[in-house]
């Protein structure tokens, strides 16, 4: 690209032209830029002209190594960029105020820090002398003066003390601070391999210092590991906070002053700081959350290294950091005194939640004060329950519901949880004296909910209700009426409670009531929160699950898809709500017979959940369970069985006698039967049946399922009469709950019909089977594979019974079934068998 011979000429011409007055340069170049023949060499001329234009700027741009060292007046941009922040060696050995500067110990964003000593020798201890670097003096001068004033007012064992302040001859301000020996907190904790407990106790020292500063109306605003130095004092780690450099006074009216953006540290800056909005103590809460996150997990909340700043800013504003427990590496764990699994387990739950609450993007959702954050850390250390509950009321309720066997009691505990949460939020908001309106609002909400709950609990107290009807029906009806009649001012709380009651109704298989409550809750949420709010998605999911349970799969799929879209948009791809919707869709696909799609959806939801949930978490176990079920349906028994064993063990351990435990017993039993272990299967099915009857009463669909299952195992062992009895009870239960058009009802009819036929009651049997086929078609559509398979069974029974004409009428459906089957499917043989029976009959 560069021509060596041309370059020599360029050098000379450039050097000469630079001395020519600007007005004569064109003429000079046109005269001198000639080739051997004397013709104008335009390429040469243009290149020299180009370099000439760059020459002036180039000098300033370069600077050299010495420029970078002494803080040259020229730009020296390249030197600065290459050699780093201009340093200030010039003060070493000089006297500044009462101090003699001994050594430069560092440079920060604002300037240089020196170690110095009292010149008169009265105090042997060194001080840290901080001087603004020249380029910034004009910018941060006033801020520096503020720091001086602020720090002077702070006196706390964990805050570096301001000793003195003044100005150099050139006007640059300096301050002398307590010289703090130590390492940044994160590095100290790692190099001393502090356990999680020790890290938390150290963190509490930091909280204590920041809370103290807040009480003095000082916000730090630049909390980060390098501003929190830790040294071992008397055998214990002691943290000291440095650099209230960009802190500004919070005025008494609560409004905050603004600060420039240049000195932000994105990994610890709160979203409102990045947006350059007024910052309050909430920004320090956020930064402490980021600090704790890193201290616990070894990872920063925001990845800053090697990334363009706009992406970093985007992350600070929009991306919720994954829970600390999910990002711990084996290496980080080894510095926290344990294997990765152990540390991960240790962080899960409370600590994930505490950090999450401190790091909320919206500051009103964070801890309302540093004290609040410290209190939760302290409560956690003391083994007490923390105030930072899971993010949503919904999660809170379902957690409580899961732990309780009788749905009504669970509902009440869930209500109590809601009230407790609101009350705590209100009290901590009051305590902070900030966000007055919101605190007032929350207080009102808490009181209102509290009153409501007191009334409601009163109704359940037998001594007060005078021994009135305490059946579930009555209790639910009254609870529902109470919710509807109160909480006018709090549509979101009312919606949560209504949905909760809907779930209780649904668990009692009172689907119409559940549907009404879910719809009511959804409408309330849409009206109060907007169509795109995650709670709206959750409401849609309630309805989807109900539709699924009722057998309306088209509706279930549509609702799940809507919920999925809302949750993805609002919460991101990896959110647990997204996983729940994927799981729902997987269930719909499964029951429709699209097993590949089912497997796909369930595996995606499992990936999200395994990454974020502890092994015993209900959602994770249930996902595993469903996946096992689909694998079972795929006849992948070897893969399914270990999953079932895992799920069953988990269920027995965490739930004991529970509807979910019964379900696993049932499903695992089905697998055992498929692999030829009927005795094992029968034992598990019977255990499930007994459990379900005790928990749910005799007519519940789950009981019906167990009745059918036990019947089926008996049937395979030729115990037809016993089987028939069980099938009849199952059919009765299913009709009473699902109405007459439901796949389950169809299945009961088929089973019953077949077992009748097996006992020689042919007419009765065939009639029942035909009923079953119709119900199946009405439920799934006549062309559904399951419906067509049902027809095949019917045709087989007809053929066996020698009903040639009726068998022949099934042939078109059998052909359509054949079109759905792949080559080699054993069902093809069954179809052929039916057809050949017809051939024989007509021959």
């Amino acid at each position, binding site marked *: *690209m*560069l*021509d*060596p011979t041309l*370059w*020599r000429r*360029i*050098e*000379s011409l*450039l*050097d000469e032209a*630079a001395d020519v007055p600007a007005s004569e340069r064109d003429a000079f170049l046109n005269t001198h830029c000639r080739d051997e023949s004397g013709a104008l060499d335009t390429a040469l001329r243009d290149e020299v002209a180009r*370099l000439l234009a*760059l*020459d002036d700027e180039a*000098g300033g*741009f*370069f600077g*050299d*190594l010495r420029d*970078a*060292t002494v803080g040259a007046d020229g*730009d020296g*941009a*390249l*030197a600065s*960029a*290459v*050699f*780093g*922040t201009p*340093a200030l060696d010039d003060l070493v050995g000089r006297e500044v105020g009462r101090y003699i500067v001994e050594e430069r*110990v*560092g*440079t*920060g*964003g604002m300037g240089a820090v020196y170690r110095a000593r009292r010149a008169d020798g009265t105090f042997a201890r060194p001080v840290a002398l901080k001087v603004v670097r020249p380029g910034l003096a004009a910018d941060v001068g006033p801020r520096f003066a503020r720091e001086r004033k602020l720090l002077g007012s702070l006196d706390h064992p964990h805050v570096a003390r301001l000793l003195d302040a003044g100005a150099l001859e050139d006007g640059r301000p300096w301050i002398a601070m307590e010289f*703090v*020996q*130590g*390492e*940044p907190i*994160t*590095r*100290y904790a790692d190099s001393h391999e502090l356990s999680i407990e020790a890290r938390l106790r150290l963190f509490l020292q930091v909280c204590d210092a920041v809370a103290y500063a807040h009480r003095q109306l000082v916000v730090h605003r630049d909390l*980060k*590991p*390098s501003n929190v*130095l830790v040294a071992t004092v008397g055998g214990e780690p002691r943290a000291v906070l440095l650099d209230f450099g960009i802190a500004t006074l919070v005025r008494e009216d609560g409004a905050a002053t603004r600060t420039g953006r240049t*000195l932000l*540290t*994105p*990994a610890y800056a709160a979203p409102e700081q990045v947006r350059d909005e007024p910052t309050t103590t909430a920004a320090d809460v956020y930064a402490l959350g980021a600090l704790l996150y890193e201290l616990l997990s070894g990872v*920063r909340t925001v990845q800053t*290294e*090697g*990334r*363009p*700043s706009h992406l*970093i800013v985007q992350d600070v504003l929009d991306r919720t950091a994954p829970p600390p427990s999910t990002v711990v590496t084996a290496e980080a764990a080894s510095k926290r005194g344990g294997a990765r699994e152990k540390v991960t387990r240790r962080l899960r739950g409370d600590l994930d939640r505490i950090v999450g609450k401190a790091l909320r993007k919206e500051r009103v959702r964070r801890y309302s004060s540093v004290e609040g954050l410290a209190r939760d850390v302290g409560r956690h250390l003391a083994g007490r329950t923390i105030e930072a509950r899971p993010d949503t009321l919904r999660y809170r309720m379902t957690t409580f519901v899961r732990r309780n066997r009788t749905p009504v009691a669970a509902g009440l505990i869930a209500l109590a949880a809601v009230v407790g949460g609101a009350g705590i939020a209100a009290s901590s908001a009051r305590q902070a004296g900030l966000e007055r309106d919101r605190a007032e609002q929350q207080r009102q909400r808490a009181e209102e909910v509290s009153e409501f709950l007191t009334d409601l609990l009163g109704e359940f107290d037998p001594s007060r209700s005078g021994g009135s009807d305490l059946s579930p029906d009555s209790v639910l009806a009254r609870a529902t009426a109470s919710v509807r009649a109160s909480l006018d001012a709090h549509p979101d709380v009312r919606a949560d409670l209504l949905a909760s009651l809907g779930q209780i109704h649904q668990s009692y298989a009172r689907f119409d009531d559940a549907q009404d409550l879910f719809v009511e809750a959804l409408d309330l949420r849409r009206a109060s929160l907007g169509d795109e709010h995650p709670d709206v998605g959750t409401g849609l999911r309630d309805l989807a699950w109900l539709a699924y349970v009722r057998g309306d799969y088209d509706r279930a799929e549509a609702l799940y898809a809507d919920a999925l879209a809302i949750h993805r948009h609002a919460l991101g791809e990896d959110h647990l709500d997204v996983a729940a919707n994927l799981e729902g869709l997987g269930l719909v696909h499964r029951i429709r017979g699209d097993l590949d799609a089912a497997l796909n959806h369930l595996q995606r939801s499992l990936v999200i959940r395994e990454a974020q949930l502890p092994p015993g978490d209900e959602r994770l176990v249930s996902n595993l369970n469903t996946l096992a079920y689909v694998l079972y349906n795929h006849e992948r028994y070897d893969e399914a069985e270990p999953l079932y064993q895992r799920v069953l063990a988990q269920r027995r351990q965490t739930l004991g006698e529970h509807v979910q435990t019964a379900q696993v017993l049932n499903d695992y039993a089905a697998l055992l039967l498929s692999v030829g272990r009927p005795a094992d299967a029968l034992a598990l099915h019977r255990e499930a049946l007994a459990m379900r009857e005790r928990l749910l009463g005799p007519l519940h669909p789950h009981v019906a399922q167990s009745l059918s299952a036990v019947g089926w195992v008996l049937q395979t062992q030729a115990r037809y009469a016993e089987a028939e009895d069980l099938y009849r009870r199952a059919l009765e239960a299913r009709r009473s709950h699902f109405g007459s058009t439901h796949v389950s009802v169809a299945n009961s009819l088929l089973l019953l019909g077949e077992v009748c036929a097996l006992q020689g009651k042919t007419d009765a049997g065939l009639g029942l089977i035909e009923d079953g086929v119709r119900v199946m078609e009405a439920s799934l559509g006549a062309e559904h594979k399951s419906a067509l398979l049902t027809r095949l069974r019917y045709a087989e029974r007809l053929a066996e019974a020698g009903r040639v004409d009726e068998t022949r009428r099934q042939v078109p459906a059998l052909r359509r079934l054949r079109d759905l089957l792949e080559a080699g499917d054993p069902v093809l043989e069954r179809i052929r068998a039916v057809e050949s029976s017809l051939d024989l009959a007509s021959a």
Partner: protein
Amino acid sequence: MSAPPPDAPAGDVTRLLDALRRGEADSEALFRRLYDELRRLARHHRARWHGNETLNTTALVHEAYFKLIGSVEGFENRSHVLGVASRAMRQVLVTYAEAQRALKRGGGVPDIPLDDALQMGDPLLSDEQAETITALDEALVRLGKADERAARVVECRFFGGMTVEETAEALDLSVATVGRSWRAARAWLYGELKPTPLLDLG
């Protein structure tokens, strides 16, 4: 191998300089030695400042550089040593930059304070510095292909912080030639680097 005392220029550098003067060692050996010495000094300074506001790596390297060249004060072929040290300086920085870029392949410009960059992830350089150094080095390689002399001048002036006179002595050129070469090289490099958004520092 026991480490030499950190702050004093290593005794074997002095011995090497003696050998060089007696014609018993060549510039290449000196370059290797100075290169190693720069890195060692930089590492040492870094360890010493560990735990407080910390200088970034290149600042440490150039502090090390000044300690090193301070030790050859009064040497009779001091300028020659400085010339070699400048080359070592460039090479040390390029090595750090390459290491950093290898760590952060496909990176951009983080706007975190430099001291933080060093303390948190313990990277060798800020990405911005790594990019800048690499861009400069690449441009300098291109320039050197057309004119080795110009590239050497830039090394001495920029990386070594040498004066025009020192550079002339070290490279055995006239002061006027160094001035001419420096001006053209500077302008050309500026033209090469200017479009790089990394250097849009103003």
